């Protein structure tokens, strides 16, 4: 990530991939997170670990305004505090039971999560429409080489002469997350072509990575 301008914000997912009432796994520099949207549409990000038995919360389920762990059904509110322990239906869970939460912002169809406390806002990406997200084993420099251009301060790679724009962020597991964005008005046929073009770029970047050309 290009920390000078995006601060601690990471573009973790596209809005369209997280409908109301669902939870998905994501990654930021602080580790794995469970990113979820309540039935009423409120976004939350919490550490991907239930404090009870360490189960990954992104395997859980969203009912109403709470995220529940799949293992024992412990439920967490948007603020990360535990609000229900099904094994003890009459118990009000103590305030001390909570999952760590992170700031979330959604703009232009992209969901950003901050790893640390921050006063900043994520960058605004003008005139770009999200298409899809993909991950790659290639690093950012291999993607830059494959695309024939460098990433901007916001992490945008714009190959020349097309509608395609890649928003890239390096993850601490060695993979790179790519959000494929499109410039201007596009038809479904344009979008299908752009999706295939992004796949070709990924293939090229992974070939470069494998051959050790990118450093």
């Amino acid at each position, binding site marked *: 990530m290009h920390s000078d301008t995006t601060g601690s914000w990471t573009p973790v*997912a*596209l809005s369209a*991939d997280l*409908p109301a*009432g*669902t939870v*998905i*796994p994501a990654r930021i520099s602080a580790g794995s997170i469970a990113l979820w949207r309540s039935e009423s549409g409120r976004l939350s990000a919490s550490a991907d670990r239930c404090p009870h038995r360490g189960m990954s919360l992104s*395997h859980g*389920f*969203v*009912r*109403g305004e709470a995220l*529940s762990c*799949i293992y024992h*059904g412990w439920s967490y509110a948007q603020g990360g505090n535990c609000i229900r322990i*099904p094994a003890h*239906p*009459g118990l009000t869970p103590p305030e001390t039971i909570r999952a760590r939460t992170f700031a979330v912002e959604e703009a232009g169809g992209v969901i950003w999560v901050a790893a640390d406390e921050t006063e900043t806002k994520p960058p605004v990406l003008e005139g770009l429409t999200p*298409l*899809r*997200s*993909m*991950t790659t084993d290639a690093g950012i420099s291999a993607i830059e080489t494959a695309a024939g251009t460098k990433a901007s301060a916001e992490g945008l790679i714009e190959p020349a002469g097309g509608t395609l724009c890649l928003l890239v962020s390096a993850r601490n597991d060695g*993979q790179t997350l790519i959000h494929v964005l499109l410039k201007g008005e596009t038809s*479904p046929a344009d*979008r*299908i072509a752009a*999706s*295939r073009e992004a*796949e070709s770029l990924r293939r090229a970047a992974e070939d470069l990575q494998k051959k050790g050309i990118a450093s």
Partner: protein
Amino acid sequence: MKLYDYILSPSCYKVRLMAALSGVSLDIRPVDFHPGLEHRGPELLALNPAGSIPILQDGDLILTESSAILVYLAAKAGPEWLASDKPEEAARVQQWLSFSGRLTASLGGARLHEMLLRPGDIDALQRQGVAALRELELGLVEQAERGMRFLAADRPTVADIACFPYVALAPDGGVSLDAYPAIRLWSRRLRSLDRFIEMPGVHRLHELKAEPTVEESKV
């Protein structure tokens, strides 16, 4: 209709799932695949010399390929699960039915290796599994652009049922599904269908049922 079935087999699950969704009742004959290797025994080899399950027996019809069984169940009880007469749709159904065989070979092989200790080149199986998942993800992205929520149409077909089980159970074989948002949305759509049934490793979507209140839970 008699199904020679193994509860942990994703291919057998395809058949159970299709039957549940189309309202067919099956006479289940459990096969001791693990640890007993009954599918390699004389009784089952007589039915299916390939030594694989599922096997569907209906009168004198014996089917041993899961895609063929899905088509048979759908034709009998749920024609809306088959392709319409649109050439593109019919071809897409065939495309994904064939593709599902690659999911079985890659993700299924990795799962058998990682879970039931069957032999195999695990790195190659997982790599092929990832390649297949990427193809499926791309296919679903393109379908979404065409305004279609499923693999061959805007409604689920036998093609979706053929592909879903090995994909949903990919993590059993050490292949993560985290990187495939279109697959996740598609999988959720299938799991939300009326009369959908699970198999071990595919958990219930508990959110489909309202949270019981404390008063009710004291019953």
